[in-house]
């Protein structure tokens, strides 16, 4: 029977428990010891009833003698007190060990996950939406932690104690025991069958919530526009409808989610009916000889019936709570299984600053290639520009040069060593980047600049900032260089962030520069200064740059024209302009028809 039960149990929950323990890399010893003590505690909880039963048996069978009976009451009280004390110890040890054990497992689990995230390629990290990873590593882990430290033990004890009791009762009277337990397997089966349905409706609810979340964000961000066009009312009506839709799906989820739980409880409890019926049949077929003992065991069953069914009824609640963590665990498990970026055991040192791209192919999934068989060489101290229509793979190529991903085929090498053999440490020592998405971290402005060269003096930081035209706005901030920039530097404008990253790159002074030219919308004067700072930054380095305005790369040593992941043209500005091709088309689109007015 127990084996039978196990297979019909909500197996994914047990798989999750095992998987979390396994992923944590910690020993579950303490946790299991806690579980054992808890089971002992719950078994001791049954003993008073047994004591009463034997006491009653005594009284019923040996009628009369009041003195002896009164003395037996003292015995009974003494036994109960002793049981209580042992139970208290078991409760204490059980709770302590299961909590501590649970927390230890979770500490390991958290550490392991952090370690995985830490090793992920930057490109993979960027695939997660803003905050998504943070939600997973805080809310989802927290959810699993609460479950693991509180619910799991409860679930296991409320399953195991009744099963132990059931086995003991089988031994007393197997008919009645099976009768009492008859509803439970059916109830479980029912719960299991309803599970897929529940998953489907709750998925529908999740989808509705996600959709609404998008709508609310859109509503809030677009509110200014909606008001200007007097359309806020229209959007409000849409939101109202959507909220009503959520109400309907939510009620549906409750019916399909709580309904089966209610019926599970009913079916389990109906074991009482089977028990009473079987008892009646047994009594009807009783021979006078067996009467007394049979009947006393009936009394024992009556006393213990709810002690067996009660925990099973409770179990439904724990199961329901646990179900909500299944999704959290699965998300984390997927994260856990992502392939980390390999780091070499001993890093090679690049011989020079030549960058060579060889047979490079890459796709985010295995189906479509974003970059297809690229070959080019960027000699030391030269400048290479990458141009092409949007979606041609420029940023992806840049990402591969910075090793945000490893290519599926071919290689990128710096100074004769494959980037994989260089490792992040060597690579990022040699390479600076100034990209559109400027990466600032939580800290002061000075910290954000200094990270380019940790041993830089205040003076050097200030000079770098002056050269990047940011000293001016930094000095105007309330705390100057010590102003903290929170959450990705959100209190700074795009232009200001860009200038900080230029200052940082200037300070870092790495021989290779990856640059995305797009200038954020800044006022004329600032734009002028940013351009000068960029020119200065580019001097004397190996530069690879994504260019949006072709006029800025007229002097590049080589221009690579990308289209749909392939190199379609390669050469200098004049050469490319002289021949028919994509470059000339792009140039004409940008400058062509207006050229005369621009030159004036």
């Amino acid at each position, binding site marked *: 029977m127990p084996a039978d039960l196990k297979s019909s149990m909500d197996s994914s929950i047990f798989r999750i428990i095992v998987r979390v323990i396994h992923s944590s890399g910690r020993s579950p010893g303490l946790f299991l010891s806690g579980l054992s003590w808890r089971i002992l505690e719950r078994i001791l909880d049954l003993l008073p009833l047994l004591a009463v039963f034997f006491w009653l048996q005594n009284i019923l069978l040996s009628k009369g003698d009041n003195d002896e009976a009164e003395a037996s009451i003292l015995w009974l009280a003494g036994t109960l007190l002793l049981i209580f004390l042992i139970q208290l110890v078991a409760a204490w040890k059980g709770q302590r060990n299961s909590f501590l054990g649970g927390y230890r497992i979770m500490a390991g689990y958290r550490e392991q996950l952090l370690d995985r995230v830490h090793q992920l390629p930057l490109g993979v990290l960027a695939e997660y939406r803003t905050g998504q990873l943070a939600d997973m590593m805080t809310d989802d882990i927290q959810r699993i932690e609460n479950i693991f430290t509180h619910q799991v033990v409860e679930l296991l004890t409320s399953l195991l104690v009744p099963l132990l009791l059931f086995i003991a009762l089988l031994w007393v009277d197997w008919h009645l025991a099976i009768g009492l337990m008859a509803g439970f397997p059916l109830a479980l089966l029912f719960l299991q069958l309803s599970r897929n349905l529940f998953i489907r409706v709750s998925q529908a609810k999740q989808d509705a919530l996600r959709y609404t979340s998008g709508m609310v964000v859109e509503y809030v961000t677009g509110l200014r526009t909606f008001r200007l066009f007097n359309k806020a009312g229209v959007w409000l009506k849409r939101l109202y409808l959507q909220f009503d839709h959520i109400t309907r799906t939510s009620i549906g989820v409750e019916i399909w989610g709580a309904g089966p739980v209610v019926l599970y409880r009913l079916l389990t409890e109906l074991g009482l009916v089977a028990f009473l019926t079987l008892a009646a049949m047994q009594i009807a077929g009783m021979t006078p000889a067996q009467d007394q003992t049979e009947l006393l065991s009936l009394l024992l069953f009556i006393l213990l019936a709810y002690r067996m069914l009660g925990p099973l009824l409770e179990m439904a609640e724990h199961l329901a709570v646990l179900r909500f963590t299944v999704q959290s665990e699965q998300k984390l498990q997927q994260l856990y299984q992502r392939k980390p970026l390999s780091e070499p055991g001993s890093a090679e040192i690049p011989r020079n600053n030549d960058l060579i791209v060889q047979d490079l192919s890459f796709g985010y999934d295995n189906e479509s290639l974003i970059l297809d068989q690229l070959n080019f060489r960027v000699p030391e101290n030269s400048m290479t520009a990458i141009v092409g229509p949007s979606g041609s793979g420029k940023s992806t190529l840049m990402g591969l040069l910075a090793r945000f991903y490893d290519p599926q085929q071919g290689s990128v090498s710096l100074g004769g060593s494959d980037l994989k053999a260089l490792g992040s440490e060597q690579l990022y020592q040699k390479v600076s980047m100034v990209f559109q998405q400027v990466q600032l971290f939580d800290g002061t402005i000075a910290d954000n600049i200094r990270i380019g060269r940790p041993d830089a003096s205040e003076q050097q930081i200030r000079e770098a900032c002056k050269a990047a035209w940011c000293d001016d706005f930094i000095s105007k901030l309330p705390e100057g260089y010590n102003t903290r920039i929170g959450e990705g530097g959100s209190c700074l404008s795009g232009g200001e962030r860009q200038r900080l990253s230029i200052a940082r790159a200037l300070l870092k002074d790495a021989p290779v520069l990856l640059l995305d030219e797009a200038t954020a*919308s800044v006022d004329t004067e600032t734009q002028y200064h940013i351009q000068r700072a960029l020119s200065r930054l580019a001097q004397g380095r190996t530069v690879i740059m994504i260019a949006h305005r072709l006029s800025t790369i007229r002097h590049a040593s080589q221009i690579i024209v990308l289209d749909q992941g392939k190199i379609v043209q390669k050469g200098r500005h004049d050469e490319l302009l002289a021949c028919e091709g994509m470059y000339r088309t792009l140039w004409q689109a940008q400058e062509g028809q207006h050229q005369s007015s621009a030159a004036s």
Partner: protein
Amino acid sequence: MAEFEDKAGWRTLWFLIDRQRTRLALAFAFTLVAATMELVPFWLLAQGAQAVLGFIDQQSTTTEMAETFYQLALWMAAALVLKTLIYGIAYFLSHQAAFFTLAHTRRILVTRLAWAPLHWIQSYHSGQLKQMVLQDVDKIENLIAHHTVEVSVSLLTPLLITFYLFWIDWRLAVAALLVAPLAIICSMLFMRDMDSMQDQYHQVAVSLNKTTVEYLRNIPVMKLFRQDARRFSAMVQHSQHYYSLVEALTRLTVPRWALFTSLLGANMLLVLPAGGFLLLHNEIALTDLILAILLCGGMLRPLLKISHFFTDSREVLASVRRLNPVLNADNSAEHAQQAEGADPVSSREEGIDVELSRVRFSYDKTLIIPEMDLTLPAGSTTVMTGASGSGKSTLAQLIAGLLMPEQGQVTINGRAVTDLSNEQRASLVAVATQDAFLFKGTIRDNLMLARDTVQEHDMELAIKVAQAEHLIQQLPDGYDTRVNEQGTRLSGGERQRLALARALLADTPVLVLDEATAFADNLTQQAFYRDLQEHYPDKTVLIIAHRLAGMEFADQIIVLHKGHIQDAGSHTELIQRNAYYQKIWQLQRDSHHWTLQDDQACESRKRSDVTEGETTCLQI
């Protein structure tokens, strides 16, 4: 303090469940019945015991006893089904009440947002507002849907059992309840520093989450600057610190919690000996004792649920309190709108002028515009420029009616903007700003936001003037391409061009362009203003810009400095007399001719000041 805050939370909650009170009362009624029904199976089991004892006393035969058991089985089935049914109804009602409350609350929130002052809304991150409308509101569900039923059952069941025990024998009841005061005293002791411990736990948990979020956010920079190993070990240390504190707290709380829970379950310890004593002295019947034993075991345990309820409710109340700022948001605009009603709009008259008279505006106690007088004559084009922070955008918002002047007024053809209804204002003024907002949907939907019907050639003209013709041609489904969804990502410049077209399509006599071509290159910008002049000559246009290419034609150009009009005139006038204006033009020209490897220019610029040493001449 905490209690005061809780009270505020409860008050808000009471306000929010307003329309569901009847339904909730009904749910309570059903719960009461269900709680009573909980006791019936125990009573039936005790009847079984009585039958057995009766037989042992030889008062009945086996057939009679079997008959009794058959009957009991039947009653049991009926009782269980009925109980389930009643519970089902109670839960259904409480869930309905909960979900209706959630929808109601969300409606209130988004409606408040629709009319709240924009600058106030902008002090929130859109994620925060989403968090409120969805997640924070969602927390209420648990409290209304589950706790209403469960907490009342947890309270009612022990109460009913106590009544019943009193009815059997008062001494038995006292014995059963005697552990309760002990447990309660114990729990009071327990709860006393429980609060502070919980705060402590909460603090480390919050701080761990904060560190984690920060760590994750910063991983990319840290990796690129080879700081990640250090950051990672700091992160792991923080996690270890959290767990060691949790462990210390667990060690402290567990003994007390174990004592508390054990005591709650320990009433057998007194009931059994007391019952036995009473039985031996024939004060109570054996059946009564058995029923008492069946009911007493764990009768106080449901009280544990109430302690869970208190822990949960704190969290829910915290969420509810977070809603308060929006619930109490200034909705005077909403009422003003409703009071106004429809008033015939006179936007079709010839030429509309805009006038600012003695307008003063400050934000957050910073004076942005001290006093401004300005006229935008009907059909004219005005360009406003100036360093950032000069108050240009504020002026645009004042004219569009998004901000209200502190003093003075903005009038459109003599009528104060603040007196116009939203509809009237929207039909008079269209605004395009730097951050162009497009919603999910097709390009056509987005373009037609302002109007319900648009002639195809109007649409094409607007797109052509906004320099978006080529963009539309490039898109897979042209006007029917869906934007802001997976697949189609538009750049900032592309979005701006669509927003321009939308503002043109709104067909308003007044057009305000607030850095609306900021992402466009000079050539596109020039083309746009040229086409705007040509195809929409009657519009009264205000252009706010820091890049001035193509705006030489403007009727008046205003140089704004710290909220004052520093200079105003035509391009030819300003280029001759205004230093700021001259500088802007000079820099603009230089920027346009820049190349990355502008080595010599770079070197020379480093040494000389920006405004001097220019060799290129201005030829306009």
